[in-house]
C-alpha cells in the first residue's frame, strides 16, 4: 500500500487509466470466451482473423472464422453508453437517473474506504457498516417521521439530517469495533471486517423478518414499514419515480470536499496520514497510534453508514435485506481513485455508470450482468501492480525520463512526490 500512496498524482492517474483499459480488454476476452461456452442460433460477433488469414492461402469461404455468441463491442456500448440513456434529448431520463443514484451512494462508500486506507487500514467492512446505517435509519425514522409529517418542509429539514446522523452513528459504531480490535487486540482488520459483514447481514435479516420487531406486517416480503415522503430526499430535477436526488448528490460531493479538507488541512488529518505512511515515525512524533486507528475506523464506518442512510432515504424508502454490494464496489472506487477523496468522485461516477449499465446489459443482451463483478476484481488487481505498468512503460519508453529514479521501489527510495 505504501507504494500506492507514494506514487505521484499524475502517475497514479496513468496507472488507474491503464488498469481500467486493461480490465476492459480482458473483460472483452472473457466475454468472447464465455460466448464460446454457450450456444446460440446465430453468432453475434464473428472474428474473421483466423478464417481470413487461412483462406487467403487456401481459398474458399472463411472456413475457420470463429463465431461468438456475445459481441463485446455491443456489450460495452450498452454498458457505458447505455447507462447515460438518451442524455442529449432527455437529460433527466430514467437510466441516467439510476446512474446518478448509484454514483451518489458509491461516493460515500468510496470515501469511507479511502479514509481508512489513508490511515493504513483496510476497511473491507464498508458493506456491513452501510447495512447497519441503513437498518438503523430505516427503523428509527419509521417511528419519528409520522408525528412530524404535518410540518411539511420543516419536517424534511429535521428528518433528513436526523436520518443521516443515525446512519453515521450506526455505521460509526460498527466501524469502531474492528478499529478497537485492531488497536487494542492486534486483530487483523481485514478478517474482522469481513466477518462483521456476514454478521451485519444476519442481524438485519433477523430484525426485518419478524413482526415483533420491525417487519412490515402488511407485506409478504421481509422489509420495514415505508417511510413517509417527507423523510425522503426531494427529487428536485429528476422524476419522483426514479429514486434519485440532486440534493443527496450535492451532499455527497460536499462530504468528499470536507474529507479532503480534513485530511489535507487539519492536524487530525495529518496524524491520520502519517500513521498510514510511517506508523513508527507518527508514533515518535507524538501521535497516539491506537486512538488514530479507532478514530479513523469510526470516521470510515460513519461515512459508509451515511451511504446506507442515503440508500434508504433516496432509493428504497424503507429497509430491505439483500443490500447491493456498494461496500465492495467502494473498495474498487477508492483504489481506483488512489485513495484520494476528490478522485473518489470520478471513480464513483465511473462505477455508477458500470452498475447502471449492467442493468441495461441485462435487459438488452444475453450476457450476464455479473460481468461487472469480474471487472471490479480485475481493476483492483491491475491498480495493485503499478510495477507492471512501470515495467511496460520502461519497455516502450515515454513513461519515465531516462535516468530518473524508479519511483519508490522496495528499497524505500521514496522518490515519488506525495501529491
Amino acid at each position, binding site marked *: *500500500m505504501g*507504494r*500506492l500512496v507514494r506514487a505521484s498524482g499524475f502517475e497514479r492517474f496513468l496507472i488507474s487509466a491503464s488498469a481500467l483499459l486493461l480490465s476492459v480488454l480482458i473483460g472483452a476476452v*472473457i466475454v468472447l470466451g*464465455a460466448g464460446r*461456452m*454457450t450456444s446460440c442460433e446465430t453468432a453475434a460477433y464473428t472474428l474473421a482473423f483466423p478464417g481470413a488469414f487461412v483462406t487467403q492461402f487456401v481459398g474458399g469461404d472463411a472456413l475457420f472464422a470463429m463465431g461468438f455468441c456475445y459481441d463485446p463491442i455491443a456489450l460495452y456500448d450498452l454498458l457505458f453508453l447505455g447507462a447515460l440513456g438518451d442524455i442529449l434529448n432527455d437529460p433527466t431520463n430514467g437510466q441516467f437517473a439510476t446512474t446518478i443514484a448509484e454514483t451518489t451512494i458509491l461516493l460515500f462508500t468510496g470515501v469511507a474506504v479511502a479514509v481508512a486506507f489513508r490511515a493504513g487500514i*483496510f476497511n*473491507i467492512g464498508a458493506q456491513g457498516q452501510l447495512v447497519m446505517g441503513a437498518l438503523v435509519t430505516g427503523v428509527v425514522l419509521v417511528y419519528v417521521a409520522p408525528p412530524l409529517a404535518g410540518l411539511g418542509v420543516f419536517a424534511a429539514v429535521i428528518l433528513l439530517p436526523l436520518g443521516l446522523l443515525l446512519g453515521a452513528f450506526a455505521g460509526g459504531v460498527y466501524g469502531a469495533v474492528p478499529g478497537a*480490535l485492531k488497536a487494542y*487486540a*492486534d*486483530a*487483523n482488520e*481485514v*478478517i*474482522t471486517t*469481513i*466477518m*462483521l459483514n*456476514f*454478521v451485519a447481514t*444476519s*442481524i438485519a*435479516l*433477523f430484525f426485518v*423478518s*419478524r413482526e415483533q420487531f420491525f417487519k412490515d406486517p402488511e407485506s409478504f416480503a421481509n422489509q420495514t414499514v415505508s417511510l413517509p415522503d417527507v423523510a425522503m430526499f426531494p427529487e428536485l430535477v429528476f422524476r419522483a419515480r426514479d429514486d434519485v436526488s440532486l440534493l443527496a448528490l450535492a451532499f455527497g460531493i460536499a462530504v468528499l470536499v470536507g474529507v479532503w479538507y480534513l485530511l489535507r488541512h487539519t492536524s487530525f488529518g495529518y496524524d491520520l496520514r502519517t500513521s498510514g505512511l510511517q506508523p513508527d515515525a507518527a508514533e515518535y512524533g507524538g501521535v497516539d497510534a491506537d486512538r488514530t486507528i479507532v478514530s479513523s475506523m469510526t470516521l470510515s464506518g460513519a461515512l459508509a453508514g451515511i451511504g446506507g442512510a442515503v440508500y434508504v432515504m433516496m432509493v428504497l424508502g424503507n429497509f430491505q435485506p*439483500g443490500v447491493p454490494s456498494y461496500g*465492495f464496489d467502494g*473498495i*474498487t472506487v477508492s*483504489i481506483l481513485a488512489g485513495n484520494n477523496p476528490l478522485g473518489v468522485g470520478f471513480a464513483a461516477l465511473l462505477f455508477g455508470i458500470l452498475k447502471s449499465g449492467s442493468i441495461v446489459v441485462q435487459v438488452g443482451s444475453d*450476457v*450476464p450482468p*455479473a*460481468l*461487472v*463483478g*469480474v*471487472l*471490479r*476484481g*480485475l481493476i*483492483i*488487481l491491475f*491498480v*495493485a*501492480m503499478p*510495477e*507492471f505498468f512501470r*515495467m511496460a512503460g520502461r519497455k516502450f519508453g515515454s513513461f519515465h525520463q531516462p535516468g530518473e529514479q524508479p519511483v519508490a*521501489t*522496495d*528499497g524505500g527510495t521514496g522518490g515519488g512526490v506525495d501529491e
Partner: protein
Amino acid sequence: MSSADYVPSASDVRALPERAYDRLFAGRSRVQQSVIAITLAAVLSLVAFGVFAPESTAGRLFAVLTASSTLAATLRLSVPIAFAALGGIFAEKSGVINIGLEGLLIIAAFTGIYATDVTGSVWYGLAGGVVASTLLAALFAVVCIEFRADQIIAGLAVWLIALGLAPFLSSVIYGSKNTDSVATFPTLTDMGIPFVSEFVTWELGFVLDLPVVGVLDLQSSLVGLPFFGALFDAGPPVYLMFAAVALSWYTLNRTAFGRWVKASGENPKALDTAGVNVHRVRYVAVLLSGVLAGVGGAALALGIGQFTGNGPTMVNGKGFIAIVAYLFGNYNPVGALASTMLFAGLDATQLTLQARDVFNVPTELVRTIPYITVIVVLALFGRTRLPSAAGDHYESGEDE
C-alpha cells in the same frame, strides 16, 4: 488418550495434568486465562448435564453435539477450511500473505462442478477444480512476486475476481448463478473398495464394560458406533484432508523444501546467500496453496453436488475463516486442523440446531456464531508472530 498411556519423556517428567495446565494457562494474559477457564467450565458442565440430566436444555444440546451426524457435518465442513488453511500456511510461511484463499475456493468450487458435469466423474471434477484454483494462484503469484503488487490488495482482487467470475460463468453455462446438480462423492461404505468398505460395516459383536463410561455396546459395526461412527463413513475428501495435514506437517518440518519455505519467509537474504532462489520457493509455495485450496473448494461443491453463486456464494467466508484457523493453530498444520474442527464444529452445531429445531432459537442469529467466534478467537489469540518477511517483496541483488 488416558493418563495411563502417557509415557514421560526425558525432557518433561511431570504429570500430565500439570503439563496440560501449563499448556493452557502459562504465559497467557488475564483475559485469555479467564476465557479458557470459562470455556473449560462450560464444556465440563455441558458434559455433566448430558450425562446426568439428558432432559434439560443443556442435556439436549449435549445430545445434539454428540450425535454422529454432527461429527459427520463437522468433518464435511472442515474439508474446505482445512485445505485452504494448509495452503495459507505454505504461502505465508514463504513470505506471501495469501488473503485470496476465499477466491481460490470459489473458483475451484465452480470449476469442480462444471468439470464433473462435462466429464461425468467427480474425480475429474476435483482435478478441474484444482487446475482452476492453481491457475488463479499462479496469477496471484506473478502479480505479487514479479510485479511487486501489494499482497493484501492483490489477494482481495483474487477474491473479488472469483466472486464475479464464478457466478458469471455459471450464468453463461447454466443460465443461473446456481449450477445444475451433478454427482457427489460417495462415502466410504458406498465406494465398494475391497476389504475397507466391508470392514467398516462388519459387525464387531462384542460388549465393552468400562468402569466410568458404563456399558459400551459394540454389537454394531464401526460405522454404527455412536459419534465416532461418522469417522468411518465419510467421503474421500475427509480422508484426503487428514492425509494432507500429515503430509504438510512432514513437508514443513522434515524436508529441505520445508526449510526453504520457512527461510524464505523469515530471512530471504540468508536463503539467497545459501544459493536457493527465493522467488522460485515463493512461486512453488503459492502454487501449492492454489492446489490445496483447489481440493478444498472442489470438495466443498462436490459434497453437495451443486455450486450456488448468490451473494457471497456457497463458500461464504470459509477462506477467511481458514486464515484465522491457521493463525490460531500458529502455522502448524495439526494446530490448524484442530482450530478448523472447532470452527466447523460450531457451524455443524448451528446447522443441526436449525434442522432439528430443538430449541426455539432465531436461525439468523445462530448463523452468526461461527463468524463471531472467529472474531473473538482472532482478538484473543490472533497475536501470532508473522514470518518476519511476510508481506515484503524480495529482490535478489543479482537479479537487477
